[in-house]
């Protein structure tokens, strides 16, 4: 598209956005949804398959109880009602990576429905309505070889890997979210981030967007103030939190430019492009496929025992937002400080470091300072930096005991990150301990005094501020392993200025 897009401020001044999000989460169950095949990521193509997940004639699905339990827990965590009785349904359409040419999903009887998730944006709580949470199966993966686009059209060969086919997939659909105005992109992002944290806290999925275990489709429409909601588009291929925000924003701008020019929005699927940050048209939904849903006759209805559901509800972990609130209070952090901890993905790390004996302030200092800096530099997640909370607590313990000063501690931490061992091991191996033996220090001080007679005279004459230069000299000869305060006291004492 070559037309110039309008400015975002102008768009939100003229139009009101309505957004909606459909999120797919691959569950981390040991086995697939309908068979006993393993689900772990990777593996040679078509090695984690059996007659059931290949959809061979005669094979039948049997529902995975762990997946049903995980879905109910997600539903409960999202304040949903849990269906007392519901069915799976077949969604019929032909596609080579779908073994049966129908997907077992749920249609008008979702397992969980009518909930909400509270999301914090700029210190304000926004309540996102949850329409439904249902359980379905994932498809295989198709690789189209030989075409220019990697799409099915123009490809000379299509290769299918069914390892992913039949992995349990939970779909979480929000109700339409109107009234967000200029904040629509941020709210979309905050919702997905919060949802990810909730699901991670439940331990039912590793929710990694980059590996596709959390996938997001973003619905966007614009309308004039007071008018009916506009036609929506569905943007797919949104694979990071940042992309969620960019996709909503870019689609708002595009739709505004179409509407400004007197055009109309076509109900369609659009693809988000990470590199350019814009969306392009996919298949049109106006001549929508008729999926011919009907109740799955190979499976008995699901009727979760109410006592079991109550048990699951009682056993839910503390939800991330409440937990963050509690932690913020315990740690005595300002909203802004807490926000930076959350943004750095350091809540759990700091919590574990505190549990291992460090003070919240010290733990926060290490994780948000030195370690975050390194994580940013090397482009890894903070959690994957190579230092554990226990090691960080141990390091701080050495500082508190006076065995390491701040500078030495940083050197030791470098060693920890490089995998050289525990802080104590590194300190000993690299001989980095603070020199506390006064005899050796006194010798170094005397040496420094002898080498700088003019400065020594100044100090003797009462100009104690000049001691800094001698402290520097001593620190140099002790390779920084002395405690600066002790050195200073010693110098003043030797020169009779104390």
């Amino acid at each position, binding site marked *: 598209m070559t037309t110039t897009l309008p400015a975002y401020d102008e768009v939100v001044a003229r139009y009101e956005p309505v957004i909606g999000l459909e999120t797919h989460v691959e569950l981390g169950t040991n086995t697939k949804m309908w068979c006993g095949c393993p689900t772990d990521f990777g593996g040679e193509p078509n090695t984690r398959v059996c*007659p059931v997940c290949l959809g*061979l004639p*005669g094979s039948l699905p049997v529902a995975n109880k762990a997946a049903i339990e995980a879905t109910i827990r997600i539903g409960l965590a999202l304040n949903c009602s849990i269906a007392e009785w519901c069915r799976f349904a077949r969604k019929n359409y032909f596609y*080579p990576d779908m*073994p049966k040419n*129908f997907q077992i999903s749920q249609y008008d009887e979702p397992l969980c429905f009518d909930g909400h998730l509270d999301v914090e944006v700029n210190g304000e709580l926004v309540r996102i309505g949850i329409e439904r949470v249902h359980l379905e199966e994932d498809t295989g993966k198709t690789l189209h070889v030989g075409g220019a686009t990697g799409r099915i*059209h123009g490809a000379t060969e299509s290769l299918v890997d069914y390892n992913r086919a039949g992995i349990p997939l939970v779909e979480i659909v929000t109700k339409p979210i109107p009234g967000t105005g200029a904040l629509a992109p941020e709210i979309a992002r905050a919702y997905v981030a919060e949802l990810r944290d909730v699901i991670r806290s439940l331990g039912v999925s590793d929710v990694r967007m980059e590996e596709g275990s959390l996938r997001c489709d973003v619905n966007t429409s614009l309308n004039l103030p007071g008018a009916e909601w506009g036609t929506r588009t569905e943007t797919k291929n949104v694979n990071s939190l940042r992309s969620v925000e960019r996709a909503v924003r870019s689609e708002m701008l595009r739709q505004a430019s179409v509407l400004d020019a007197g055009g109309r929005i076509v109900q369609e699927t659009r693809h988000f492009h990470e590199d350019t940050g814009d969306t392009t048209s996919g298949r049109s939904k106006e001549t929508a496929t008729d999926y011919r*849903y*009907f109740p799955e*006759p190979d499976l008995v209805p699901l009727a979760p025992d109410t006592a079991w559901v109550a048990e699951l509800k009682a056993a839910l972990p503390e939800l991330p937002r409440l937990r963050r609130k509690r932690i913020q209070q315990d740690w005595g952090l300002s909203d802004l400080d807490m926000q930076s901890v959350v943004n750095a993905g350091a809540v759990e790390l700091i919590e574990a470091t505190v549990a291992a004996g460090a003070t919240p302030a010290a733990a926060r200092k290490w994780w948000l300072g030195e370690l975050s800096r390194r994580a940013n530099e090397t482009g890894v997640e903070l959690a994957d930096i190579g230092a554990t909370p226990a090691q960080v607590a141990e390091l701080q313990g050495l500082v508190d005991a006076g065995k390491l000063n701040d500078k030495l501690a940083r050197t030791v931490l470098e060693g920890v990150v490089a995998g050289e061992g525990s802080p104590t091991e590194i300190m000993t191996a690299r001989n980095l301990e603070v020199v506390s033996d006064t005899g050796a220090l006194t010798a170094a001080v005397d040496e420094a005094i002898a080498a700088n007679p003019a400065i020594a005279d100044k100090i003797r004459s009462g100009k104690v501020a000049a001691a800094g230069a001698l402290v520097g000299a001593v620190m140099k000869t002790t390779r920084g392993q002395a405690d600066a305060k002790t050195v200073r006291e010693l110098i003043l004492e030797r020169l009779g200025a104390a």
Partner: protein
Amino acid sequence: MTDLTRLNAVDLAGLVANGDASAVEVTRAHLDRIGAVDDRVHAFLHVDSDGALAAARAVDERRAAGEELGPLAGVPVAVKDVLTTKGVPTTVGSKILEGWRPPYDSTIVERLRAAGTVMLGKTNMDEFAMGSSTEYSAYGPTRNPWDTDRIPGGSGGGSAAALAAYEAPLAIGSDTGGSIRQPGAVTGTVGAKPTYGGTSRYGLVAFSSSLDTPGPCARTVLDAALLHQVIGGHDPRDSTSIPAPVPDVVGAAKLGASGDLTGVKLGVVTEFTGEGAEPGVMAAFRESVEALAKLGAEIVEISCPHFRYALPAYYLIAPSECSSNLARFDGVRFGLRVGDDGNRSLEEVMSLTREAGFGPEVKRRIMIGTYALSSGYYDAYYGQAQKVRTLITRDFTSAFEQVDALISPTTPFVAFPIGARTADPYQMYLADLFTIPTNLYGGPAISVPCGLSDGLPVGLQIMAPTMADDRMYRVAAALESSVGAFTPPAL
């Protein structure tokens, strides 16, 4: 020496157990019989001589080692080609699966093997079990051993004909709308449709998932019960399988054989004794009802007013499910693939494969089902049919509050000449008029030979409440003891 192929399963098992005949001898006798007559009957699509002889030898070895054998060990069985058999071709009577050798055994076949029965091969059927005459097999029709110019019923005509032609003493069928009972009736053999969920569907190539029920076929009621006992029972791989033991069908068959039905109340379905059936069929049926009364059964008339909607409801539900079940036959992973010449798109290859691989009746039902499930038509067709299904179930439950079992003729007419009904699908569908209600309800039903009409067999159907399969075996065995068996003329 005795012709082993004329013996019933229970007697053959006795000979093998006592060492009076080896399983290999029994198997050879049947393989020889198949070799001698099957070019005229065409009951089999595939004969697995090597596999059968190996299985027979294994039984003989186990016996020699002093191991205890099951009640049907060493008895040959013919398996309808709708069940997967590991390494043995499984076509479902369709070109689309020509040459496919499944990598796994269906639960039924697994249980047959574990019981020491000897699988002779795979029997002919209407393509994907859609038909009532076996004329819709992509591999040519099976002929009725009573008159080889006539049909053997369908879809399981191959299994029924194999029994009537003495090619096998036992066979497995599958019954979606009557495909076990109707062939049983027109070939003078016994065919039982167990309670839905009483026999596992794992490895049964699906036609209509909510109706398909594998079950036993035999020449006597006791043999059918013995086979039912072997194949039935809960299977964790089929989530619609009922987690309960098989009702005591063998005990019930033995009890019934004593010929005493005192205290048993049977309901004749009024709707099925009217103008729908041929006079010859009705005559044989009425004689049998009298025979049952003489055995001590109390006979009453029962009206099941919604049974007349069963056929149209069935012809919406079954095609709807089949349109989805048969979607997987696309040439991508198994079976036939047409047009993959490097120039055609994937969609074109799928389309050409299905065009070439499915026969006209299968295509007709896929189209009916696709239409019935379409958005905007679902409520009027599929939804409405499901409501009818509920009403039919109510007819059954209220009938069973009054009687122990319902009885009717199995089919409205005896075996018709090959080609007589293929021009008009509706005329073909009528063959299942009396058998379909049971499938919609899910209960068990059995067809047992009850007489002849113009020299051709007539069957009587006994329908029982769900999980009361034993009840129908008792009544069937009693009738059998009274009217005797019916032997076809020599081939």
